[in-house]
């Protein structure tokens, strides 16, 4: 197991290295006029040249890359060209915001998907049809519209939760939950449908297998058959879907962060890209790829725990 983890981590580091290198040369090689963008339209050529020198942008691109890479090895991702804030510090402040929203969205997605999927598979009939209808509706309903509606109802009209902003969990748990619950609901709405469908389909397949019939003939309770035997076997493909969904949620966090004015990872990536803030863009790339590697590793391990047959591979 340890060898497996080390192998996957090694592959992940190579992936991070390749992706960030490509990102670096694409962004730094794109010729974005960083100094001019910072100084504005009235800056003279001398001022632009001076700032380029201050930022180190007058050096050969390969030298700049190794300078950046050397910083990364020491935990220094550089400073924002526009705000002079340390990139590491900015990411550390922003990651908890996005992770909070995504984590709560995941909890909502898993609970509702399992409830809907299991109920549909177990009961069938009209309940299955109704739940599938709800799931399909949630899949096609534009999440951005849902976000606007939720803000209007729960924040603007009822004043139950804030319309904007993030409260750290250490400051107030209730405040934190209030600040992330609506964005999390918006983020989870599309995922619930697909994950519930995945669970339902896998569960129905499992319930029709021979070993289930054998269990029933031995008098094993339906609850045990459903939760202990069928659901565990059906969970493996659902887990893979869930891992992809988690990464997609992380990527989609931008639009909920815009709607709810959350100072998260997505809005940071968006702003830095619009500004051409190259160190910030690279920091976002580095963290994003790292996250994908870690999530994939966790899913592989979880799959191995759920299904011993996949451990060897």
């Amino acid at each position, binding site marked *: 197991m340890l060898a497996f983890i080390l192998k996957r981590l090694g592959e992940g580091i190579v992936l991070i290295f390749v992706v960030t290198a490509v990102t670096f040369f694409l962004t730094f090689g794109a010729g974005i006029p960083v100094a001019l963008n910072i100084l504005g339209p009235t800056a003279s050529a001398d001022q632009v040249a001076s700032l380029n020198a201050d930022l180190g942008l007058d050096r050969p691109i390969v030298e700049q890359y190794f300078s950046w890479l050397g910083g990364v090895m020491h935990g220094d991702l550089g400073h924002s060209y526009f705000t002079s*804030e340390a990139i590491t510090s900015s990411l550390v*402040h922003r990651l908890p915001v996005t992770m909070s929203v995504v984590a709560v969205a995941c909890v909502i997605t898993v609970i509702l998907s399992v409830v809907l999927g299991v109920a549909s598979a177990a009961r069938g009939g009209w309940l299955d049809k109704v739940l599938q209808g709800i799931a399909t509706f949630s899949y096609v309903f534009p999440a951005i519209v849902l976000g606007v509606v939720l803000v*209007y109802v729960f924040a603007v009209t009822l004043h139950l939760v804030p319309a*904007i902003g993030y409260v750290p969990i250490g400051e107030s748990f209730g405040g934190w939950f209030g600040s992330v619950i609506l964005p999390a609901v918006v983020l989870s709405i599309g995922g619930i449908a697909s994950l519930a469908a995945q669970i339902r389909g896998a569960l129905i397949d499992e319930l029709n297998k021979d070993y289930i019939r054998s269990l029933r003939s031995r008098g094993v309770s339906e609850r045990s058959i459903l939760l202990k035997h069928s659901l565990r076997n059906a969970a493996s493909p659902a887990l893979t879907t869930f891992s992809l969904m988690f990464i997609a949620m992380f990527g989609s966090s931008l639009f909920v962060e*815009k709607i*709810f004015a959350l100072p998260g990872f997505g809005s940071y990536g968006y702003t830095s890209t619009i500004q051409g803030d190259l160190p910030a863009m690279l920091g976002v790339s580095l963290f994003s790829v790292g996250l994908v590697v870690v999530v994939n590793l966790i899913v592989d391990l979880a799959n191995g725990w759920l299904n011993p047959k996949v451990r060897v591979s």
Partner: protein
Amino acid sequence: MGFARRLRVGGVALVAVSALFLASCSDGGSTPEPSKTEGATTQAVQKNQTLRLSITTPPGNFSIGNWSGGDSTPFLSVYDTVLHMSVAGKIEPGIAEKWEYNDDLTELTLHIRSGLKFTDGEALDAQAVSDSMNASIALPGAVSHQDYVDSVSAPDASTVVIKLNRPSAALLGTLAGVHGAVGAPQALTSESSKTQPVGSGPYIMDLKKTVAESKYVYTRNPDYYDLESYPYSDLEISVIGDATAAMNAVQAGQLDFTTLRSADQLAQFPESKFSHGNLNPNAVGAIFFVDREGMVVPALKDKRVRQAINMAFDRQAIAQGLGPGTMTATDQMFSPIYGSAYNAGLEDTYAFNVEKAKSLLAEAGYPDGFDVTMPSTIVSQAFEPLISQALSDIGIKVNWEAVPFQDFYTKVFGLNYGMFYMVTGFSGNDPQDADQIRGGAFNPFQLSTPEFDKLLNQANTVEDGSGFGPVNSYLVDEAWYAPIVRMSSPYVVPNTVAFTPPVVNNTTVLPFAPATN
């Protein structure tokens, strides 16, 4: 089936728990009741009230000389300036309590208030002012326009002398803005000043509560000499990039001010809870004819072509169609609410007249029009169909070239376009506006004429900046630009806040005060 029943019960419980959680969070998002601000209550409110504002993009570098433009409220809340600009646009004493020019307006002497200190305890004297001004001039800052400054010196502890290589009526306005900001000498060149400013302004940045690029929190500077003008004890400036989110926040009681994209949105703010009005015009959208020598677009060398383009626009219809209540048709690049450059009589100079425009083009040798390439940016996109249609009607075909905004300046300075559509903001006085529209990216070919230079020099010899009328008349007559609309915005504040629309928006918190009724 027992298990299915449990599922149902579980679902109901989940909903109930969620509802309880929502209810438990209600204190975080509740709207404060409008305060009664009469008599003694007013004083209490003024002592302990937070003003909550928003900005659309994070502020840039906080060190003196490096402010990169945009809303300067985060910057000018912590830094005091040499002079002040009142809400009405009047230049008033600031760090300098008096000032005077020499006879030929090439030397400005500033008399610094005594007893001032920075919030780190350093003395704020003439040398500190001189150091900051020299830093502002020397460092690559945005829109400095201070090429007329020869030197800044402090002959004694209370006097600063600014020597100019030519008179400039823009200087006083400049000293009242970000380029007149004064920072603590020990922090001027330190790395920390980029994120942890040390000034002497009305507020002190609370570094513990400030989260960079998200929320900037300030507390009152108790030693500030004009606390009466800053009645709020605390200031919070949140970065909110989405206009709808800002509107929601005002409705939910989390923000104290927002602008709206159209007057229609006012319906969402009941008068029982909110006050509203229109900001003063803050910008003009225009086509800039930067290639007036015809190097890239030969036709633009002819004044009649530029005038014809001006006549192609039905400005009234455009203003009504694109921004009812927020846009006003105009032929001029200057603001009508201050100074003397703006001339209402010039507004009919280029009335919409397609036939006359065609005739002018024919006289200039372009009876069939011509093709022109213009940059398509995020700023121009809403206007592009209108510009294409209007110019097509007189035979000019526009090819829009998509340009990411971060590449716009490079393309313009690369002399790729003879004309482009852009918006320029008003500065609060005519001299600074005149500097702005004839410099930088608005004049990449670096063109002028002897007549214009003469008019400009004459205007700059009028100390109070009231001599720019002839400059504006010349620009309109020569059609250096095709102004289309002046822009403004409706605004909304809760009834707990009194807001006075300033001549220049988004610079300080001076327009805000607790409501007194």
